[in-house]
């Protein structure tokens, strides 16, 4: 068998000849790349152009796809609980609907720190992955990293205010008897929604970088 024969044989067996996967949508892929990385690019683009060096990001997202693989089954289960919890949340939103938008300034505007309490309730279901649409109705919305957990008191360093607030830290009293549905661990990122100084059920969620990107995009800040 000579080179040409071998090449022909290899080419005939090319797995990409009959692709089962659809061709990638280039524009969508470009868009996804740029949006998932806007924070990085805005921080380093000027430096990269003036000095000719390129910063290497430390953060990688490798492995999230595989996590999804395992998470698929879990997500199916969560959807069920999330549906119930979502219904409860919608009721809460309607019930206290007199106060919206900037009305919460008295709590949110304190630069030193914002104090919130978690809503009491007996829900046992898990919360579904937060979406911008579901949390849009809350006047206070931020993404933060947990810096300390002391008993029922959780302190957040605010990474990003999505809506209505400017405090750098937020203290959340999660209520000692509510550990069941609000569990916080240090160093993790959460998206927290609040209304009238109260975090509703499913209003504080541990989130992945993709979800954060999704929120930042949705709230366009």
């Amino acid at each position: 068998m000579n080179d040409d024969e071998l090449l022909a044989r290899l080419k005939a067996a090319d797995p990409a000849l009959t692709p089962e996967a659809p061709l990638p949508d280039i524009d969508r892929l470009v868009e996804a790349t740029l949006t998932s990385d806007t924070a990085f690019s805005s921080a380093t683009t000027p430096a990269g152009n003036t000095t000719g060096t390129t910063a290497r990001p430390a953060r990688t997202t490798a492995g999230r796809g595989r996590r999804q693989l395992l998470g698929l089954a879990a997500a199916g289960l969560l959807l069920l609980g999330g549906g119930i919890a979502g219904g409860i949340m919608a009721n809460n939103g309607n019930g206290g609907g007199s106060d919206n938008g900037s009305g919460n300034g008295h709590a949110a505007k304190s630069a030193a720190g914002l104090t919130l309490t978690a809503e009491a309730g007996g829900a046992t279901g898990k919360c579904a992955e937060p979406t911008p649409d579901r949390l849009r109705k809350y006047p206070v919305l931020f993404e933060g990293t947990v810096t300390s957990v002391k008993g029922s008191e959780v302190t957040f360093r605010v990474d990003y205010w999505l809506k209505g607030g400017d405090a750098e830290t937020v203290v959340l009293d999660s209520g000692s008897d509510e550990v069941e549905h609000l569990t916080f661990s240090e160093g993790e990122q959460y998206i927290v929604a609040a209304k009238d100084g109260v975090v509703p059920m499913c209003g504080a969620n541990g989130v992945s970088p993709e979800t954060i990107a999704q929120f930042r995009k949705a709230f366009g800040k």
Partner: protein
Amino acid sequence: MTEQEARRAQRARFERLAHVVVEPLHRYLLRRTSADLVEDILAETMLVLWRRIDDVPGVGTGSVPGPASDPASDPDPDDVLPWCYGVARGCLSNARRADGRRLRLVERLIRTHEQQPPTGPADHSDLHAALDSLGALDREVVQLWAWEGLAPRQIADVTGMTSNAVSIRLHRAKKRLAAQLGRKDAERAGHKRDEGRSSQ
């Protein structure tokens, strides 16, 4: 040039690069991993390419100011692809390393699942078996040569070896592959003759 213009130019360069490399990269990954992982690793690869857009050879530097300094022409695939394959290769091995055995098991299951019905006009199981018998780097070099259609110099860019080392490795791997396939073919021919005789 304002910061905003610079960023826009950078985006434009990235978009032109994407239009040239996405489909070849997609095929590259399709040849080496399962279809459902391809999308993730491709997205990861694009993220790296965007972050390192200034390092991609053959895309223009973009740091030259002035009108029309950034050529609006698409980058030459021969210039950019080997480097981009190298990035995809890195992302692929990162993904494999990260998930280690579990992922390999998944891939193996998929492969055996796909191989079970020997469908299609031609059965390539002999060839795949022969490829699997090569070392990982030998196999990659042969695949880059046959499927991605790269020259030894370009394979060197992808793998970080010298062109010389690639040429030698490629030569030996092809010889081993051909020998193994030749043996299989001979076995099968002999087998067929036997069958023919016994049925008469």
